[in-house]
C-alpha cells in the first residue's frame, strides 16, 4: 500500500504570546513543531505499515527550508521518505493556493491508496486544506476520522467524529482522511530513526518541478486576504447552578427573570 501524509511545521502555540499592543503573535524564539493533528495522521499511516510492512509512507509538506527538520522528525518516527515544497513563489499562500500546490505534488508522486492529513493546523485553524486537496485530485474524503475500523481491499471503514456521536463510513480508495487527536497517540521517534533521518535525502520541489507558473502559486493565487487577526476579550466567569435539576431550573428561571430576559 502507498500512503501519503500531509504534514505542516507550525509554531508551538502553547508557547506563543500575544503582543498586547499590536495584537499580533510574537513568534520570536518560539519553537517550531510538527502540527499535532498531523502527528495523528502520521501515526495512523505508521500503524498500517506496522501491520503490512511493505507499505510505503511518504511525507508531503510545504514551507520554508527549516521545515526539513520536521520532515526528518517524521522519518525518525518511521516514515519512508519526504518531499518538501519550498519556493519563494509559494509564499503567502492561502488554503486555495496551498491545496493546489500540494495536490500538484501528489499528482507528480504518482499512485497512492490513502492520503492522511491532520484535521487542521494550530496556526491557521482552517481545516480546509485536506478536503480541498481531495477535491482537486477528484477523490473522496472523510474528515474528523476518530477510528479506522477496517482496511478492505478497495475501501476503508472509518468512524467520523460528530459532536455527540460518530458516523461509520465506508470509503473507496484512493481517498483522503483527516485525523483528529482521538484517532491515536503518536509514537516517539527512535534514536536509530533519527540517525537514519539525517542520512536520508529529502526531495525539495519548487514551482518548476510542479509545472506551475509563479502567478498560479502562493500569494498571487490566493483570493483570501487576512484583514486583521485578534484575540477576543475573555468573557467573565459564568455562574454555575448547583443542586437538583429542579433547584437548578429554578435558579436559572430566577436569574433570567431578574435580568428581564423572560
Amino acid at each position, binding site marked *: 500500500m502507498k500512503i501519503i501524509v500531509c504534514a505542516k511545521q507550525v509554531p508551538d502555540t502553547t508557547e506563543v504570546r500575544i503582543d498586547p499592543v499590536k495584537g499580533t503573535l510574537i513568534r520570536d524564539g518560539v519553537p517550531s513543531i510538527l502540527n499535532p493533528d498531523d502527528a495523528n495522521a502520521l501515526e495512523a499511516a505508521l500503524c498500517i505499515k506496522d501491520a503490512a510492512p511493505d507499505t510505503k509512507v511518504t511525507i508531503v509538506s510545504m514551507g520554508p527550508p527549516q521545515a526539513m527538520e520536521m520532515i526528518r522528525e517524521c522519518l525518525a518516527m518511521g516514515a519512508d521518505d519526504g518531499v518538501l515544497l519550498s519556493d519563494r513563489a509559494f509564499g503567502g499562500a492561502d488554503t486555495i493556493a496551498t491545496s493546489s500546490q500540494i495536490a500538484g505534488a501528489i499528482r507528480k508522486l504518482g499512485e497512492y491508496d490513502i492520503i492522511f492529513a491532520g484535521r487542521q493546523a494550530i496556526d491557521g485553524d482552517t481545516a480546509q486544506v485536506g478536503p480541498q486537496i481531495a477535491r482537486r485530485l477528484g477523490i473522496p474524503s472523510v474528515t474528523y476520522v476518530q477510528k479506522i475500523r477496517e482496511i478492505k481491499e478497495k475501501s476503508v471503514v472509518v468512524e467520523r467524529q460528530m459532536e455527540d456521536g460518530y458516523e461509520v463510513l465506508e470509503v473507496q480508495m484512493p481517498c483522503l482522511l483527516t485525523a483528529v487527536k482521538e484517532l491515536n497517540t503518536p509514537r516517539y521517534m527512535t534514536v*536509530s530513526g533519527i*540517525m537514519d533521518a*539525517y542520512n536520508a535525502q529529502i526531495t525539495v520541489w519548487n514551482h518548476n518541478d510542479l509545472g506551475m507558473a509563479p502567478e498560479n502559486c502562493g500569494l498571487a493565487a490566493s483570493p483570501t486576504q487576512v484583514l486583521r487577526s485578534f484575540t477576543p476579550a475573555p468573557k467573565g466567569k459564568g455562574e454555575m447552578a448547583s443542586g437538583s435539576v429542579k433547584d437548578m431550573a429554578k435558579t436559572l428561571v430566577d436569574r433570567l427573570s431578574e435580568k428581564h430576559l423572560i
Partner: protein
Amino acid sequence: MYAFLEPKHEMVRKLVRQFAETELPKEVIDRIEETHEFPTDVFDKMAACGFFGMRVPKALGGQGADYRSYVIMAEELARVSVVANIWATTPNSLAGGPILNEGTDEQKAKYLKPVMDGKIKICFALTEPEAGSDPSAMTTTAVKDGDDYILNGRKCFITMAPLADYAIVFARTNPDPRAREISAFVVDMKLPGVSTGAPEKKMGCIGCATSDIVLNNVRVHKSNLLGAEGSGLKNALATLDVGRMACAAQAVGVAQAALEEAVKYSKERRQFGKPICKHQAIAFMIADMATKVESMRMMLYQAAWMKDMGSKDVAKYASMAKYYCCETVQDIVGKAVQIHGGYGYMKDYKVERLYRDARVMTIYEGTSQVQQMVISRAVLK
C-alpha cells in the same frame, strides 16, 4: 546552539526531553521515591525508543548513534529523573560495554541484543568491600575445573543486583595476589551458589536497588568467560572510561534541573516586598549557577566530540569532565536548596531529591580522587 553538536544531536535531545517530561511526571517520580520501584512500562518504553543500545552498531541491533547522542540522552533523562537515567545508561555501559568490548558473536547475540531490547537485565560486579578505587585488590576467585570455573567471593554496592538476570563478575584467575590476572564472567543469577544481600538503604537514586552479590562455589561454564583469561581488568577499565562521560552528563542534567527550579522559585517567592530574584544576593547566585552549568556542558560536549573524532587524548578529557561536572553539581544543588530556604529541605520540593541524587556522583564510576589521579598522570607525564 552548541559548537560541538549537530542538528541530529538536538533532535535526540528533543526526543529524550519529550519522553522524560511525558513519561516521568511528578506523580510517577513521587511513586518511585515511595515504593523504591521503577515502573516497568517506562523501562519498556525507554527500550523501544532505543535508549539502551545507543552506541552499538546497527548490524548488532543497536542504534548506531555516537557519543554526543549518548551524553545528551543521559543529560536529558537525568534532568527529569536520575534513576531513569541509571536504568538507561546501565545497559549502554556497565552491562553492554564489557560484552561489546570482548564478547564473542555468540555472547553478543545471547546477552547484548536482549539487554538493548530490555528483555534481560545485567549488572556489573566489580567492587568488593576491600576493593573499590583499587579493583586489582579484589579477592573473588575463579578456579578452573575441567570445562568450568568455580567462583567464590563477595561483591558489594552492585547497582541493580537484586533485579538482574545476569551479572558480569570480575574474579582472579591466578591465585598469586601479585598477579593482576583478573577475568570477566557472565554469571546467571539463578545458578546454585549465587545470592544477593538485602537492598542497601541509600541516600538517593531511589528506584534501582543496590546490594551485595555472594558467590559460593558457583560453577560457571567456560563459554561464559568474556575475552581471554586475564583481560577482565582491562575490559572493566575500558567500560568505566565510557561510563565517565555518561556520569558527567548526569551531573549536567541534574545541575540544569536545579538551576531551573531555583529560577522558578526565586521569581515566585517574595520577601522584603519583592520577588527574591530581585535581591542581588539571590540574582548573583543564579548567575553563578547558570555560568557553571554552561561550563560543565561545554567540557562534556567537547570530551564526547573528541571521542567521536577518535582523539587519543580523550581519556584525560573524559576524566576532567567527570571530575569537574560531578564536583560542580554539588555546588549547584547546594545553592538551589539555599535559594529555596526551608522549603528546599522538605521532600515536597524537587531540589531536595536533586540534592540527594547528586551526592553519589563524586563517588561512583571512579571517585573524584581517582579522576584527579588520571588527570594528573596525563598532565605530568
